[in-house]
C-alpha cells in the first residue's frame, strides 16, 4: 500500500500544480484525477465512475478574480481512491457511490481552505521579493517564484496524501459499518448528483438561445436511452 500512497502523492502534487501555479492544462480536472487515483488504488473504472459525476458539479463556481472555487481536485483524489478501495472489498454499490460523492464536498471545502492559506503565505513571499528587488537583487524574482511554486507543490502533495488516506479510511472503516439495506436507501439521492452536474454546465452556458436547446437535447437523448434499454 505504501507505494500506492507514494504514487498518489506524486501524481496528486502534479495535478495540484496544474490547478493554479503551472500551465492550467486541465490535468487537475476531477475526471483525470479520479481516474488516476482509481488506477493507483487498483480500480481505474471505479475511479472514473466518480470522476464523471464530480467533473461537472463544481463548474458553476468560476475561478474569477480573487474568488477561489471549491477544491474539486481534492474531492477527486478522495473519491477516486475511495471508490477503488470500496469496489475491491465490498463492491461499489450505488449507496457507497452516492455516499462517496456526497462526502467529497467536505474534502472540497477543506482543500479550498488550504488553497486560501497558500495564497496568504504567498503574500509574504511576494513582499520579500519586492524588498529584495528594492535592494538591487533582480534574481529575487526567480527565487520568489520558485518559493511560491514549491509551496503550491508541497501543499498539493500533502493534500493528495491526506485526501487519499481519508478515501482509503472511509472505504475500509466507515462504509462497511452500514449494511446493504442502509446503503440501498442512501442511493435514492444518486439521481440528483448527475443532474446537479448538468445544471452546473447549463448555468455556465445559459444564454437566451441555450435553454430550449438544452431541454430539447435532454428529451431526445432521454427518449433514445429509454427506448434502447427497453429494446435490449
Amino acid at each position, binding site marked *: 500500500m505504501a507505494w500506492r500512497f507514494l504514487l498518489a502523492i506524486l501524481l496528486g502534487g502534479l495535478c495540484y500544480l496544474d490547478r493554479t501555479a503551472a500551465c492550467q492544462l486541465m490535468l487537475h480536472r476531477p475526471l483525470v484525477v479520479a481516474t488516476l487515483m482509481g488506477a493507483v488504488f487498483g480500480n481505474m473504472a471505479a475511479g472514473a465512475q466518480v470522476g464523471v459525476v464530480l467533473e461537472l458539479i463544481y463548474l458553476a463556481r468560476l475561478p474569477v478574480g480573487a474568488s477561489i472555487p471549491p477544491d474539486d481536485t481534492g474531492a477527486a483524489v478522495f473519491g477516486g481512491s475511495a471508490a477503488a478501495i470500496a469496489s475491491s472489498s465490498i463492491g461499489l454499490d450505488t449507496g457507497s457511490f452516492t455516499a462517496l460523492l456526497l462526502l467529497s464536498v467536505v474534502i472540497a471545502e477543506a482543500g479550498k481552505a488550504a488553497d486560501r492559506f497558500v495564497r496568504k503565505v504567498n503574500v509574504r513571499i*511576494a513582499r520579500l521579493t519586492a524588498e529584495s528587488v528594492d535592494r538591487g537583487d533582480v534574481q529575487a524574482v526567480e527565487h520568489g517564484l520558485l518559493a511560491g511554486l514549491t509551496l503550491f507543490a508541497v501543499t498539493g502533495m500533502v493534500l493528495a496524501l491526506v485526501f487519499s488516506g481519508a478515501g482509503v479510511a472511509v472505504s475500509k472503516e466507515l462504509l462497511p459499518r452500514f449494511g446493504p439495506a442502509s446503503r440501498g436507501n442512501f442511493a435514492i439521492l444518486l*439521481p440528483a448528483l448527475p443532474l446537479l452536474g448538468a445544471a452546473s454546465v447549463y448555468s455556465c452556458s445559459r444564454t437566451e438561445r441555450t435553454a430550449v436547446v438544452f431541454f430539447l437535447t435532454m428529451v431526445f437523448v432521454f427518449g433514445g436511452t429509454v427506448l434502447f434499454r427497453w429494446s435490449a
Partner: protein
Amino acid sequence: MTMQALAARSRRAVWRRQFLLQGCWNYEGMQNVGFAFAILPALRDFYANRPEEALKAVKRHLEFFNTQPAMGALILGASVRLEERVAAGETDPRAVGTFKVGLMGSLGAIGDSFFWGALRPMASVAGALLALLHPLLGIAALLLIYNGVHLTVRRRGFAAGMEGPEGAVGWLRRAALNVRTDDRKMLAAILAGAYAGVFAGRFLVQGGGALRALSSLLLAAAAVHLFVVLFRKAVSPSEILLFLLFVGVLILWL
C-alpha cells in the same frame, strides 16, 4: 540610444515562463511575481549593460497584475515589445503600466467568459460523456478539446503581442472571442442536455411503461431547473451537496 534586440533564446524563455504566470499567486499583487518572472529574460536582454534601468523595469512589473492566465500571453508579448521601445528611448516607461492596467481587466473578463464559462464546460461535459464508453477516451477528449484551443490562443496571442500593442488589438478583433464564446456555450448546452438525458434515462427509469418514463423525464427536468434557479440565487453547488448529505444521514438514521 541603440536598441538591444531580443535574442531568440530569450523570446523562447519568455514564452515558456508564461506558463508559470500564477506560480506565486497571492492576494496582494496576484500574478505580479509571475509576470515579472516571465518577462525577466527579455529585460535582461534590453538592459544588458544598464543595471539601474533593469531594476526599474523589474519593479514596474512587480506592480499589481491579474488577468485570465491564457490571455496573459497577449499582454506579456505586447509588454516585451513596449519594454524594447522604452529601452530604446522611444516610449515613456509609464506607458507599460498604463497598457497593462488598461488591458488586464477587459482581457480577464473576455478570457474568463471564454475559457471558464464556455470552453471548459464544453470540454468537461464532452469528456464526461465519452468516459461512459471508456475512461481514457473521456480524458483524451477533455484534454484535447480544451488544450487544442487553449494552447492556440496562448501561441497566437503571444505572437500578436510581440508585434506590439497595435498587433495585439488587431488580433483581438480578428479572434472574435465573443462570437466563439457563444458558439461554445451552445455546444456545452447541447452536450449537457445529452448528459442529463443519459443519466435520467439510466437512473430514474427502472422499469414501468411510457407514463412512468414521462414522469421521470419531467422530474429530471424540474430538478435541473430547480438547481439552476438555486445557482441564480447564489446558492453554491457545495451547499446543495451538503444539504443532500444531511438528507442522506437522516435516511440512514430513520
